[in-house]
Structures are given as C-alpha cells and as structure tokens.
C-alpha cells in the first residue's frame, strides 16, 4: 500500500526536513548578523569533529535516550507522560541515596544499585498518576504536569534541608564516594586501544542507554507484554475483548516509563556531576517528548533523534563558547528542527509521494486492481 519506497520514507523525508530546518536557521543566524556557514561548521566540528565533541554529544544523547524511551513506551499505550522531568528528578534522588548511603565496593555494583534505585524512584513517581488515571479517571496529562511541580518542591526540600552538607552554600548533596564514580568512555575504550577524549562526560551510562533502547525494542515488538501494550494503545475496546486489562497495562506502561525516566539519573547525576544538584534534569524530561515524537516512538528512532538533540546541544555549546551568538539562538534552531522533522514532515512527504507515484511503473494489467497492493 506504500506509495514510497521504504528508504525514501526513512531517510529522504527526515533528511530533506532537516535541510529545510538548517536553511531557515541559517537565515536567522544571518539576521542577527553572524556567518551561518561558519556557525554550522563550528557546530558540526564541535559536536562531531573530535572524540571530545562526541563525548559531549553522546552524554546529552544518553539523557535524551532515557527520557525519550520513557515517553515512547507510554505513547505505545496511548498515555501521554509529560512527567518525565519529575520522574528524572526523583530518579536523581534515588541515585543520590544509593551512592551516599551504601558503601559500594566497585562501580559496577554501584551502577546496578543506583540504576535500580533510580528506576524505582522514577517508577513510583509515575505509578501514582498511572493509578489515578486507571482507577479514578484523572487525566494523566494534568497529573503528570502537577507531579513535575511537586517533584521540584520535594527535591528542593530534600536538598536544602536534608541532604546538603552542613554549611554548604550549594543546595546539593556531598560528592559521591570515589567507588561510585562511573568510568567514562575514555576509560572504557582505552583498554581496547581506542583513544577517546578524557574530559568528556560520556560514560558507561551511554551503553546502558543503548542497551535500554534494545531491550525496549525487544519488549515492544517481541514480547507478549509489548504486544499487549501496543494493542491497548491502538484500541481499548479490542484490548478488553482479548482479555488485556486496561488497569494493568496502564500501570505497567507508566511504571516502565517512569523507571526509564528515572534512570536518566545514572548519567547526569552519577556519571557526570557525581553529586545531586538542584537543577540536574534541566528540562531533559521535556526534550524527551520531542525526541520520542520525532523518533515515532520507535526505540531506534528515539536513538537517532536523541543523538540529533545531543548534537544540537553540544554544537550549541561550541557556538556559545567561541562566538557571541546568544544561547537563545540554539533554542530557535532546536525549535526549527523539531518543527520541520516532526510536525511539517508531510510538507516534504506529500510532494515526494507525488513524485514517486509519477515515476513508478504502471501496474501490470493482470494484477487485480482493487486488491490492495502491499
């Protein structure tokens, strides 16, 4: 039934959309009196031109992978989880407690322990809205928004009044013990003889995120649970007929979602800052929405769009470092990328489809014309 070949849909459409976004961004850069060519060059080399750039790009991408996957899995059950931000905050709290109060002998154990705690905290923070939705019909969009604010207040309280070392100005926990520090890609790759920048924050969490993408792909497309989640997402009435419990799926999907969002904390809190600061999530929960939508809720799509956003963040940082381009420009570029690749994709797809319909070979006469072609 597809009008376009698959490669065109998967590669050509996003690529042209991206080019359009880039072209418009260039105009904006021009408008504020800067050189767009140089700016793009700086972004690309800064983000992808060195292992250092990659180290930052992948660090940001790791955050977005977790939150993007979180939004994606909920989307499959037709639940709109706007609460990734709050769940990630709580995940940070989980990581902090695990790292500060348990004497881990080795980082690998600490990673497992912290990931479990992060997931647990995030899951709990998602489970309450899920329960309210499933049992009380409270709209999950409102409750998750509210839970973001409540999480911020809770974290503020905990950091200022409980976890902050006495006399410390910074509303942050103490530094986590040495044993919990995660190895960076530099340390991981060195034994393999691969030179990777020492100072970039990308760490072993990236591998966890990639694994999470894969596990989620298996979960969604290869397991019975994933099958049920998708079925419920497509049609609640049919799910009931098949004996798939809406309450159960709502709870499970949101718990997985919250756990994934919470697990972001092993990257930014445990892997990078090595302590919990007030502002650790920095809107990654919201970026996750864009990442999931752009990735069409497919783990592989989430992977690539997370990298794209990582690139925008790191490229933007480079711009901010070496030029006087204001940081808000980066926000505008992000907006344009989201707009063109995510919302205006049909603007590219429609003419392309017409083009492919024109060039495709006319159907063979013996083929039954009314039977839908594959």
């Amino acid at each position, binding site marked *: 039934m597809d009008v376009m070949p698959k490669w065109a849909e998967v590669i050509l459409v996003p690529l042209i959309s991206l080019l359009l976004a880039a072209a418009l961004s260039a105009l904006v850069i021009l408008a504020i009196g800067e050189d767009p060519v140089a700016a793009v060059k700086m972004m690309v080399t800064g983000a992808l031109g060195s292992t250092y750039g990659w180290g930052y790009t992948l660090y*940001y991408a790791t955050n977005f992978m977790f939150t993007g996957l979180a939004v994606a899995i909920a989307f499959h059950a037709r639940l709109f989880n706007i609460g990734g931000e709050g769940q990630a905050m709580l995940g940070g709290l989980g990581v902090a407690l695990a790292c500060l109060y348990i004497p881990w002998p080795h980082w690998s154990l600490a990673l497992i322990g912290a990931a479990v705690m992060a997931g647990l905290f995030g899951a709990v923070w998602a489970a309450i809205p899920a329960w309210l939705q499933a049992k009380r019909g409270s709209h999950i969009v409102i409750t998750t928004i509210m839970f973001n604010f409540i999480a*911020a*207040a809770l974290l503020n309280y905990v950091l*200022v009044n409980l976890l902050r070392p006495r*006399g410390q*100005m910074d509303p*942050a926990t103490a530094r986590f013990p040495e044993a919990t520090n995660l190895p960076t890609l530099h340390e991981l790759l060195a034994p393999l003889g691969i030179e990777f920048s020492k100072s970039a924050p990308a760490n072993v969490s990236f591998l966890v995120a990639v694994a999470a993408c894969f596990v989620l792909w298996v979960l969604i497309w290869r397991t019975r649970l994933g099958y049920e989640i998708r079925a419920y997402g497509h049609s609640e009435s049919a799910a009931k007929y098949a004996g798939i419990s809406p309450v159960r799926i709502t709870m499970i999907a949101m718990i997985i979602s919250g756990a994934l969002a919470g697990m972001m904390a092993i990257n930014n809190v445990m892997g*990078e800052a090595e302590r919990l600061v007030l502002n650790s999530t920095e809107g990654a929960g919201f970026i996750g929405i864009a990442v999931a939508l752009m990735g069409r809720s497919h783990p592989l799509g989430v992977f690539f769009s997370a990298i794209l956003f990582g690139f925008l963040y790191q490229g933007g940082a480079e711009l901010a*470092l070496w030029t006087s381009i204001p*940081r808000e420009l980066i926000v505008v570029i992000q907006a344009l990328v989201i707009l063109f690749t995510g919302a205006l994709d049909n603007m590219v797809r429609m003419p392309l489809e017409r083009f492919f319909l024109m060039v495709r070979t006319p159907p063979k006469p013996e083929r039954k014309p009314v039977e839908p072609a594959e």
Partner: protein
Amino acid sequence: EPALIFDLGGKFDKSFNEAAFNGAKRWADETGNTFREIELQSEAQREQALRRFAEAGSNPIVMTGFAFGDILNQVAPDYPDTDFAIIDMVVDQPNVRSVVFNEHEGSYLVGMMAAEASKTGTVGFIGGMDIPLIRKFACGFAEGVKAVNPDATVIANMTGTTPAAWNDPVKGSELTKAQISQGADVVYAAAGGTGVGVLQTAADEGILSIGVDSNQNHLHPGKVLTSMTKRVDNAVYQAFTDGAGMEKGFNVMGVANEGVGFAMDENNADLVSAEMKANVEAAAAKIADGSLMVHDYMSDDSCPVLDF
C-alpha cells in the same frame, strides 16, 4: 585573553551576572582588550567551559556562582598554569582566587534602612528560590530590621521551587501585594528577574523597595529606598586587571572593604534622611571594625531572628 563564565541565570539577569559582566566590560573599555565569555545552558557545560577556555589558553578565567565550586575543585589541578577566580565560593587550590561576599552584612545595613523608613513597622523580604544563599540575605536583612526596631515584623516569602522562580515577575508582584496587604511598606527583593516585578509593584503601590546586587535605584527613581550592592563588578574587574599571575587565596568582600554596601545616589537622595544615613554608616563602621557581628546563616544553617 581572560575569560568570564556566567552562571545559568545568564549574563543579563539585572543583578549578579550582569554585575560581573559590567566589571569585565569596564576593564575591556579601559584597557581596550577583549575577553571571552559564555552563558551556560546546562550543568554539564560548567566543566566543559572551564576546560575549553583553559585549553584555549584563556588566563585568568573568572566564574560567577557557588555552583562552580565543586567542579573547579576538580578542574583547577589539571591546569596548574592557568589562574582561576571564583566568585561566591571558596575553593582551596593553589591557582584559585576565591572571592566571597558578606551578603548578610550588606543586607543588615539595608534592613536597618528599611526599618527606619517603615512607618508601619512591617517590612517584607522576597526571595527567589529557597536556597541557603537567599536565606543568608534574608537573615541578615531581618537582623538589621530588628536592630533598629525590635518589634518590627519581617515577612519573608520565597517565589517558588523551580528555576522559573527567578524569572516570574508576575509572582513577584503578587507576593509584593500580599505583603503590602499584611502591612509591609518596604520590601527587599533578592529574586533575580522576579525582583523586577517586586520593584515595579512597590513603585506602583506607593511603597518603598530595596534592590539587590547592582544598584537598582534608577529603575524607579524616588521609589527605591536603596540597593544592597554586591560589588561583583569590582571583583571581576580586579581579577581581570591583576591578570595571569594574580594573587591567589581567599578574598572576603564585606562592608569593611566595600565589597557589599548600600547604594546612595540622586535617585534615592530624598528618601534617605541624614539621620538614617548616619545611623547606617555608624553600623557599617562597627561592622567594619569588627565590633558588630552580623549573624551569617551559613555559619550554622540557622537564623536567630527569622524562621524559614
């Protein structure tokens, strides 16, 4: 070429970061030299900016904000030939100059002025987020108020718990109005962009306000009682002027060395009576010579005169 790194609030926050920027600009204008700068977008960029500037040969590198402390402590040893200056935090490294301000002292002085200017005996404090630094402001302020008028009431509110608390002038306005309806006739704002709303509403409602960090008296001439100045600009200017090889160690900027104080100019000349000014200056002198100790919230995480 020196470099300046602003905290997440951004360089035009009308107070702290902006003061730093002004100091750097003054230096640039006077010397004709240039400097690098970056406004951070994320926590991870703190370390990134430090390292990138250090590797690119910027020296000295000045940063504003306590949030850099922890990271600078890690980064500074990696670049022994680069000099760093951090404002608002103590970092004990051989190549770091730490500049901290006694905001409680400055707040004490403006608190005294508030109490003297107040006719109702009720004054207000509006903070951005409830973090220790802001409590330090609030506590010093309350102490100053009580020093003048032990019976005075100090109403203290915080704006919120998300970063939006620093940029919500609407909420600042509402808090001001709420304090006014509780009788406050002088309000002190330590809330970044939210303070814009506080000062505006105070001016609209005909009460006095007190600005923070930079001299904000000019924002509403004749309506802003004074501003608690925190001379971050001087600190940055000094660091840039001293340049590479500057003196390291702790610099405590208090009333004594005019690091903090209260702003007097033509905009508030009519608001501050000679007597008021004399009283405050006397207190300032006592603080300077050590005979008056203003309680520092950070010293024991508590405030004897204000309950958070």
